[in-house]
């Protein structure tokens, strides 16, 4: 999802990991668990740290109360309108597997069909290729990492 708060736009890509869940925030993975205590009230576990927070949504508006501060955010459609700048497409793992090669780094320009990384699954190597030309925004998958279906591995701007 993409959210706007004031002038800033953030891309948030939640995904499951072997140990739980994480969210890729603008290309930076944050590993955490979130439990709903009661409607609108949640507890986040970030390592040993626990943080109670509040979050409600009304249409496209998302209201967040985090560490004593109320924020009003707006959900924006990814890629639907406006400049692509700041936005990204997430490239997902198609199957459970192990990353055996990472061929790109953030900031790199890639061509259509260029190999981005390789996942080994069911004893086969599967190349993950760029579906279009663009710049690599982030690479969330590390060499040797086990990935599950749906987890975002590479983002393209």
């Amino acid at each position: 999802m993409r959210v706007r708060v004031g002038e800033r736009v953030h891309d948030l890509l939640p995904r499951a990991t072997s140990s739980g869940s994480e969210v890729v925030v603008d290309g930076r993975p944050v590993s955490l668990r979130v439990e709903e205590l009661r409607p609108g009230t949640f507890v986040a576990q970030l390592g040993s740290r626990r943080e109670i927070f509040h979050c409600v949504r009304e249409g496209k508006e998302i209201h967040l109360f985090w560490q004593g501060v109320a924020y009003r955010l707006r959900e924006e459609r990814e890629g639907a309108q406006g400049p692509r700048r700041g936005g990204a497409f997430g490239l997902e793992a198609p199957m459970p597997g192990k990353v055996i090669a990472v061929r790109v780094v953030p900031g790199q320009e890639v061509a259509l069909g260029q190999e981005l990384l390789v996942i080994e699954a069911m004893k086969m190597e599967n190349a993950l290729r760029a579906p279009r030309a663009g710049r690599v925004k982030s690479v969330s998958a590390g060499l040797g990492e086990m990935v599950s279906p749906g987890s975002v591995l590479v983002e393209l701007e």
Partner: protein
Amino acid sequence: MRSLGKVLIANRGEIAVRIARTCRVLGLPTVAVYSEADARARHVHECDEAFPIGPAEAAGSYLKIDAIVGAARSAGADAVHPGYGFLSQNGDFADAVAAAGLVFVGPPGAVHRRMGDKKGARRLMAASGVPVVPGYDGDDQNDGVLLAEAERIGWPVMIKPSRGGGGKGMRVVERRDDFVAALAACRREAASAFGDETMVLERRLERPRHVEVQVLADAEGQVVHLLERECSIQRRHQKVVEETPSPALTQQLRESLCAAGVAAARAAGYVNAGTVEFLLDASGRFHFLEMNTRLQVEHPVTEAVVGLDLVRLQLEVAAGRPLPVRQEDVSARGHALECRLYAEDPDRGDLPSPGRVLHYAAPEGPGVRFDSGIEMGSEVTVHYDPLLAKLIAWGADRKESVARMQQALRETVVLGVATNLARLQAIVAHEAFRAGSLHTAFLDDHFSSPAATPELADDALAGLALAVARSGSEPAGRATDPFESVGPWRLGA
């Protein structure tokens, strides 16, 4: 003396809820009144009965004397508590309630009128030895006379309507050349707002502190004070943060200020709870400003340090009982602070911010009190005062009450309407506030530009993403699978 039965609360919001609480403690049934906009408001559910009194516009409902007295009659109420604002200082209302054979919880109409007239009140105070702000309160309202008086007082001068309040019809004039035009503007505003264009002039004091004395008087003429409150943190004549004891007062100054408050109440022939407001100048001299002939918004800080329930005392005095407290019984324990939570949008010049309360959590803990007029789902409309709730923190000393307030402010959750919460947090964290260096221009001096909302950290955004994905509050028709929003293409697709 009579025993009070059912109490009609002629108000709304947090004060109506707060009054209903004390009535319940005393075993008195309560009656709420409400406008069309407030049919589902919190104060309506907190009373035993509720009567509609008119349209959303206050002029047709909460300010309509006939409608409220009519509701009191229909409900079989014995007493009417006016709260603050609305009709609370309206002498005609007090008289109409009394004429209907009901007890008005406040002073009689004549006292409201006496103190509601700034010109007369200034004269009465000066004659009773209570110092007033240097100024002019004469009958001659000729332009030339007023200009000459302004010259005598010295610039800058404040022009204030003799009848009125809330900053309407009021101007600060910096220099002679601007005076006559400002006077005309004040008269126009006052004539339309209050139906009277009599003006008083007062010297504009340089960065004064606002200190006030809580008084309590019974029908037998006993008057006591419940010490002072300082309310210097104001914006556009609206108080934001209040406290007691005032960090500005020495014990000697406190005694003379409180004695002046009692003298003012006696001079006014006061009955019930009231507040005498003073300005304290930089040289430590205080000057009478006005008397509020009602319960004050900030009364809970007094309750916290003196250990008395002011609404209970109001009801007892109104029932004709003698004051149950003597002056020598009154002493302050610790320090209390109040922050007013307003529905105001800091991003839009603090304009009132209507909306629905989508999420709500009240602070808790030792020494914390939360007087709220809202709850989850409440509609905050544009029709009334934007005050949502008051946070009160008590501590053994100012340092502790401030620390408790800071924690309470971090726990106060109101989502769906913009509030001044971040501003309140910034005020109590401010060095000058902590040092007790307060004055009525504090906010203008230290908080003139809107504070930027802090940047959201990655962990907060991550929490948000999972919360939105997990909660059932997704709008209809939207997928709840967080992974679906990832993107349209997959490997091998």
